[in-house]
């Protein structure tokens, strides 16, 4: 679903009904299910289909296109991921915590110096 995140892991071999993430074209990454694996001149040609799609994907892929197999899905965390990729998200998730930690370290160091 939109907003979910998936964790993928490369596999030495992919089987029917595996949900895989693969590169389609130059820069599009798609996650679909393996529907058919056909051997063509020694190289497996893999047909894929989205679970809710009525038709197969137009282009067949080979193992070199596959990034990995889906291990598990975490619902809704994708929205937080998308937020992290924005400037406010970067500030909230990285910059502010780093500043707070650094400032805290400075405060601790100055307190130690005052004690000594």
């Amino acid at each position, binding site marked *: 679903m939109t907003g979910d995140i998936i964790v993928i892991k490369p596999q030495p071999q992919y089987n029917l009904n595996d949900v895989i993430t693969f590169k389609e074209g130059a820069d599009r990454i798609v996650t679909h299910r393996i529907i058919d694996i056909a051997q063509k001149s020694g190289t497996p040609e893999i047909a894929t289909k989205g679970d809710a799609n009525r038709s197969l994907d137009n282009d067949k892929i080979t193992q070199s296109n596959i990034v990995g197999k889906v291990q598990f899905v975490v619902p809704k965390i994708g929205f937080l991921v998308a937020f992290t990729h924005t400037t406010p998200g970067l500030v909230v998730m990285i910059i502010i*915590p780093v500043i707070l930690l650094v400032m805290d370290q400075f405060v601790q160091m100055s307190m130690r110096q005052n004690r000594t």
Partner: protein
Amino acid sequence: MLGKHIQLMLVLTILCGLWMLGTRNTSADLVAERKIASNLFSVTTLSFINVNSANMSQLIQFFNTLGIVPGGFDARTVRIEKQGEMNVQYSLSAQKKSGDDAFCNALDLKIARRDLSTIYEGKLFNLSIQDSLQDGEREEWIILVEFDHGEESMKNKSCEFDLYMRTYRNSPSEAFRGLHATRTLTNIVTSGTW
């Protein structure tokens, strides 16, 4: 000064943030659906007619030539018009139905347009024409069947054949598929005695 728990939470937030920065998008096609709207599908016809050039009546029987002798010939005229919406590609061929093989193979065919430009000249059963009819265009043909052989064995023989015309959208050499139409002109030629 921050407490240990808050420090831990800040560190975890940073680690989560860094991990999330390393993630990439994938198309959410696990539950995606494609909808292609506003499709338009129309069917038209490739119909055409062969008509008598004198009175525009439908032609079915074409040559009915009795008693042809060596050097003899017979002529018929035909008009071909496009009736459907699509431009017509057509092929014309002759197919033997029955009769004496030698007599049938001895018959020649000549097809010329109304302006007498030759379209085909050769053996009857070598006939193979492929052409097209555009909007507003009509073909007006004069077709001659000729017999130039004088062998005794060809006396009192007959040859029944079809002039077989079909329209097509695919290549004429392929099997029928898609929209097409066929028209057949039946013919019979018999030889006399000499």
